[in-house]
């Protein structure tokens, strides 16, 4: 496979070069994006400068028949955190880009005069055209326009107005199977970097191309079957996620007293049952929506869905757990329709739903709106889309908003908003939030089979230091799975069923003709984390950045009335391996 490099700042206009993989051969997903960023981007550069790069990389098995293989990684130096960033998304682009034969697209440089471009890629090559008519279009209108121009077999990678305005919460949008811009690499502001490169949309068309072929197609088929059987028979991947989506977590996290409510003031939200995955799925069914749907072809888990408004018209994709929490409990809002509307607006403007919800929570604490006021929250999101002065503040995330309005209680690490688990109730997650290379990030410590992988040897989970070791191992294993480009929700089946994990490795071996072992996968995860840590260190990060905000140590969280008790010394041990 080749890497497509586009120098947006070349004299005479954007310059395309298709180059062999070279030193990046055999890498995909996060391993590839983080390698490129750590090797090619000066760590001290301004994230919106010509020196930053935006790397868009499918997974190792994208474009093949392997199930769950269509996740895509977007890497850059983050405008939100100032550190390295890999943000992950579903959608069709990963499969299409891989079938087009590209291991990655790397956007480099910066156009001098601030032009806005569209890039069209098909089997015949790459065409880059300036198009000012796209300026400030929302993602939905933009995709419709692209469909008119290029037909309805395309997959789009785009930014909305937030990306054009280079807001730190701006996402990169990916179209789903229905060609709606509902999947987003949201965390850390990669949309702002794409905006700084002057790229509004990349349109992909793989017409005339078929799946990538494996070195050993038969072995791939067999391994894929075992893998799919494993996903289907597991209660989480075969039943819970398909039936209720990721928002199945709302009731449980609420019951644990870890469901951040009213800007992380308390850990339980009285309106949870109104916005839970169970209620959401019933609402969708009753309105003719779909509670079980994939974000890309080839997903057998199907944790997503389609959300209709009260009149049965499409409103947005099924908002996922973090989105429902961020715009819901975190803002005291128990109205699913209002939350779905904010999800739709976020997708259209191209902003990260977690960052936006957390930001509105901070804004509510600052008195810009009352907790629970859904209409006011929608109005605040609209300010972002319009790019008003207030909107520009909000669009730059919770940390900036907290500073501007003088709020102490701002739930961020490395300036990135925390997701939907209060680290005081589930302290192991707090360890991951604090120490992740990405800023507060839930996926950076997803439950992967560390006991099967035996990352770092056996850990006694009941020892107090257990959570440090567990967090470390989870981060390593997550970096490894991210690098395969598989959806992280395979984690449970892999955790519980060693044959499903083996099937994953078998698929990689069958496709590439390799003899990888579990140890190799662990080594890959470690090397990715090391690269990312190293980049962050060169960008000026120290141990002091691996901390939760002080108030988590001081303010007890009801109902358990617990504070975050992991010591700084222990946090500093996470990266000792």
């Amino acid at each position, binding site marked *: 496979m080749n890497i497509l490099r586009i120098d947006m700042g070349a004299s005479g206009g954007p310059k395309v070069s298709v180059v062999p993989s070279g030193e990046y051969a055999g890498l995909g997903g996060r391993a590839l994006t983080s390698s490129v960023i750590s090797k090619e981007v000066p760590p001290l550069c301004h994230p919106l400068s010509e020196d930053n790069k935006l790397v868009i990389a499918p997974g190792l098995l994208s474009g093949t028949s392997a199930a769950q293989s269509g996740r895509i990684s977007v890497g850059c130096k983050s405008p939100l955190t100032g550190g390295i960033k890999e943000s992950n998304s579903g959608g069709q682009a990963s499969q299409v880009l891989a079938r087009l034969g590209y291991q990655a697209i790397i956007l480099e440089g910066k156009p001098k005069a601030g032009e806005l471009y569209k890039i069209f890629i098909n089997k015949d090559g790459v065409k880059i055209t300036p198009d000012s008519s796209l300026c400030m279009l929302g993602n939905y209108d933009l995709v419709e326009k692209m469909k008119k121009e290029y037909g309805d077999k395309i997959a789009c990678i785009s930014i909305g107005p937030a990306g054009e305005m280079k807001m730190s919460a701006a996402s990169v949008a990916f179209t789903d199977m229905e060609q709606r811009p509902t999947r987003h690499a949201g965390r850390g502001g990669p949309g702002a970097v794409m905006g700084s490169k002057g790229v509004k949309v990349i349109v992909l068309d793989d017409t005339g191309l078929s799946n990538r072929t494996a070195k050993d197609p038969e072995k791939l088929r067999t391994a894929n079957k075992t893998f799919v059987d494993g996903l289907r028979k597991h*209660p*989480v*991947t075969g*039943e*819970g*996620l398909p*039936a*209720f989506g*990721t928002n*199945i*977590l709302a*009731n*449980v*996290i609420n*019951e*644990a*007293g*870890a469901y951040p409510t009213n800007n992380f003031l308390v850990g*339980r939200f009285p309106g*949870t*049952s*109104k916005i*839970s*995955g*169970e*209620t959401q799925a*019933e609402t969708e069914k009753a309105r003719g929506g779909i509670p079980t749907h994939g974000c890309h072809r080839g997903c057998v888990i199907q*944790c997503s869905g389609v959300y209709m408004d009260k009149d049965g018209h499409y409103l947005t994709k099924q908002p996922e757990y973090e989105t429902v929490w961020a715009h819901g409990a975190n803002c005291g809002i128990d109205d699913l329709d209002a939350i779905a509307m904010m999800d739709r607006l976020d997708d259209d403007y191209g902003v990260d739903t977690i960052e936006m919800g957390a930001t509105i929570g901070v804004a509510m604490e600052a008195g810009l709106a009352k907790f629970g006021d859904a209409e006011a929250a929608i109005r605040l999101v609209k300010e972002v889309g319009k790019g008003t002065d207030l909107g520009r503040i909000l669009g730059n995330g919770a940390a900036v908003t907290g500073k501007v309005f003088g709020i102490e209680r701002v739930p961020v690490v490395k300036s990135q908003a925390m997701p939907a*688990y209060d680290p*005081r*109730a*589930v*302290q*192991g*997650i707090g*360890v*991951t939030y604090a120490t992740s290379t990405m800023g507060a990030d*839930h996926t950076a*410590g*997803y*439950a992967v089979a*560390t*006991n099967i992988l035996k990352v770092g040897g056996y850990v006694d*989970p*009941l*020892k*107090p230091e*257990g*959570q440090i070791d*567990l*967090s470390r191992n*989870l981060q390593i294993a997550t970096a490894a799975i991210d690098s395969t480009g598989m959806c992280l*929700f395979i*984690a*449970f089946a892999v*955790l519980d069923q060693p044959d499903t994990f083996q099937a994953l490795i078998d698929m990689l071996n069958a496709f590439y003709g390799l003899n990888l072992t579990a140890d190799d996968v662990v080594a890959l995860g470690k090397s990715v984390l090391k690269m990312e840590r190293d980049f962050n260190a060169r960008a000026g990060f120290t141990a002091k950045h691996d901390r939760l905000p002080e108030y988590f140590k001081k303010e007890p969280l009801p*109902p*358990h009335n*617990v504070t975050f*008790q992991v010591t700084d010394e222990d946090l500093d041990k996470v990266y000792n391996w």
Partner: protein
Amino acid sequence: MTHPEKSHGRTIPERTSPRHISLTVKAGLIPAFSQLLQNGFWIKGYVGCSVKSFLCEQFGLAPEYLEKRIQTIFLDGDVVDDVEKTVIEDGATLSLSAAMPGLAGAVLRKGGYYAAMRDQISFKGETTSASMQSGKILVKLFNMPLQELGPVFLEHGIQVESNKVKDVLKARADDFERGCGEVLADGRKFEFKQLLEMDWGGGDIFLQVKIV
């Protein structure tokens, strides 16, 4: 407030607000009770016994179902790791869920590998059996247990706030009107509409819902 009611052509005497409602409904209407079951309902039984004994011996839950299907259990918001040793006291809240996705899901699982990551909210209360006595506990059902045990608990009968039940029935009044068979209030038959017109008073009500 009391007033005379008519049912099936009979005039029935003045009555106080009903304390026991029994409905026979089409299966498709069971999800309407979902939020009630998620928020919690009271059931009576013998307390002072283990979670396992309460659910399996008193409510007939198959031990295998408890072991395999119910992977995440909370007692008063604390994660339960050992269903045989953890004792339920009168007035407790017991929440039942299947295995959950993600790191949080793994961490909250009973007896899970990641238990250390949520030590602060692990159940550390009574683990030896006190003497058994009658009492009641609040049960919350989520996800798969909601779908699978919800109809069982509804048939057995649950104690819930009457206003909340009325809200559920009102919200889908047309569906219930069409999909409701027998409607009983304190043992007497009513039309569904009459049930909604009735003053239910405040406080709790005992609700039984059977599938046609």
